[in-house]
């Protein structure tokens, strides 16, 4: 079953009297467990599409089915709830709360969830997540005491705390050097294969996109092509030498 289905999504921004079409009828579907890279030059509309997919914005026209639910017409509050339960976000600049320990950063989304966990339960869950991203010994460290890669891993743990089926990553390696980038991407692959989390990455770096099993290239508001990346170092685990 398709986790995400877009049907002729359009997005037009109104700049005074001029309307600027950014997405011109996007249709695509993403199945559960896919690792998708969304690429394209700047201004191609990939960020806008990402925002719509991430329920941060709603399309001007078209249908968006997420996990069997039409979400394009939801109110801001309903979208917030949806983001909390079903979507995780990883950003280029980590966006961790300064002067706040890693474990509190990770537990933060829980305070907006409907689950109403106690303080102790929330910390336990956050610690579990940090162990999973390999930061078991950094629970009480503040972001300023962590390296870039570690910070991004804290951000990933935070994105996963509510056990969402979909993870969005917006240029996840943009602020990282090549070695830590590799670490983070490998973590994405592991999460994808081991936990079956659907991951959608926005990137303009072909090397990063190469880690994906499927690459959607966009240009000028339409999908240019949608295929497995060609000539890449790693495709699926089964293809690896």
């Amino acid at each position, binding site marked *: 079953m398709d986790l995400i289905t877009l049907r002729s999504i359009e997005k037009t921004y109104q700049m005074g009297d001029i309307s600027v079409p950014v997405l011109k009828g996007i249709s695509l579907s993403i199945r559960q467990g896919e690792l998708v890279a969304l690429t394209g030059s700047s201004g191609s509309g990939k960020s806008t599409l990402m*925002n719509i997919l*991430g329920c*941060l*914005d709603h399309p001007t026209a078209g249908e968006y089915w997420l996990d069997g639910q039409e979400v394009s017409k939801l109110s*801001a*509050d309903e979208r*917030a*709830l949806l*983001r*909390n*339960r079903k979507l995780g*976000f990883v*950003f280029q600049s980590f*966006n961790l*709360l*300064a*002067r*706040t320990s890693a474990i*509190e950063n990770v537990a*933060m*989304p829980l*305070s*907006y*969830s409907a689950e*109403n966990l106690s*303080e102790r339960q929330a910390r336990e869950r956050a610690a579990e997540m940090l162990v999973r991203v390999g930061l078991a010994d950094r629970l009480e460290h503040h972001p300023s005491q962590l390296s870039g890669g570690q910070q991004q891993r804290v951000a990933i743990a*935070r*994105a996963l705390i*509510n056990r969402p089926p979909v993870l969005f990553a917006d240029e996840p390696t943009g602020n990282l050097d090549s070695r830590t980038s590799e670490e983070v991407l490998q973590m994405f692959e592991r999460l994808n294969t081991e936990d079956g989390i659907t991951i959608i990455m926005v990137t303009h770096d072909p090397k990063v996109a190469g880690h994906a099993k499927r690459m959607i290239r966009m240009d000028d508001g339409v999908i240019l092509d949608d295929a497995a990346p060609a000539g890449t170092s790693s495709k699926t685990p089964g293809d690896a030498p």
Partner: protein
Amino acid sequence: MRVYTTARTAFRALRRNPMRAMLTTLGIVIGVGAVIAMMEIGAGASAALKKTIASMGANVLVIRPGTASSGGVSFGAGSTTTLTPEDSQAILRECPSVRNAAPMVRARTQVVYGNRNWVPNAIYGTTPAYLDVQDWSILAEGEPFTDRDVLNGNRVCILGQSLVRELFEGVSPVGREIRIKNITFKVIGVLTPKGANMMGFDQDDVVLAPWTTIKYRVTGASLATSNQSSTAATDSVNTLSNLYPTAQRSLYPERSSVQQANNPMPVRFANIDQIMAAANSSAEIAMAIDQIGGVLRERHRIRGEEPDDFNIRDMAELTKTLSTTTALMTNLLLAVAMISLVVGGVGIMNIMLVSVTERTREIGLRMAVGARGRDILRQFLVEAVVLCLTGGAMGIVLGHGGSLLVQVLLKWPVETSPAAIATAVLVSAGVGIIFGFYPAWKASRLDPIEALRYE
């Protein structure tokens, strides 16, 4: 649970930037501190002012006998003779709103000491309670006469400052003897100077003595002649009273034999000129008037529809001054308090606005992970309220300390006011909500996409 989580989040957010939180609070600390100090010092000043006005007699009620009339001819206020010292005791005993009451008889005659003489404005025969009623208990010299002196009719007196000046030329009169109508009085005390009252009457030109002494020794039988009208009023039958003006007249109208048989009336020994009663406070004056009226009507056996045989007068002018002054002080303090709290509140709003701008990305992130607009609103609102309440608590300590310092160093009267403290807490929370609302609302309206992209 939800509220607790929000409060915890707010505390954490504030702890992340303690310097900014402290500076923000400073406005409220100073505001609330100023309010508390102002209220306490103001309340002290107001109380002192009230006391001063009260000492002028604002709480005093004067009860005088009513008007006697005969054949359509009225004889003026004070011409009936039904007010007794026992009435005064009954008023004190039975009226809860009356602090103290003193019977009074008046005389006006010559006072002689050595080769000097003087006619004081008034010679008052009264009880020691008079000094309390008039707020005059502290004497300049000597001691007041006692209830025993009143019972025994002892010849002792207290002089006002004007008499000391006129008769003794400033030498201490305590222990000396003066003569009033050829009766010697031992001076046992000197009143503190009080000056003229509002009518220009020199209140220091007065001699105070036990009322029994004045009544029976000084005025004595001559009272009957001192007021011709009352003689005429009550003795209309006795035509001989004109022949023997000093004869003791009958105090009561003639009663029929049936009346006397049904309702034998004990003999009254004395009537007095007035009773002065002090109400507990200016607020209780009206109540005291009611209670005294009831007691006197009952004691004088006045039936429902019959008019009073006495008048009760209060110092309406003084009372009005008192309440006006108090209201003025209260409003002044309130205005100052409001201004300082508004200034503090604007400070909070400013910093919260800066804080919202500075934390735009955090807000965007919180929204991305599922915070709704109202969650953000609540978080910032709670932060503002926490800041204000903390500031309020510090302000209370600061203000109270300040007012204590003023009390100790400047010797100003200060009154701790729990009401002011409670108000300050409520108002500081209110300021937090009112001035925290706009920044919080602004934060809650941010677009998560814009907020996340904000540099």
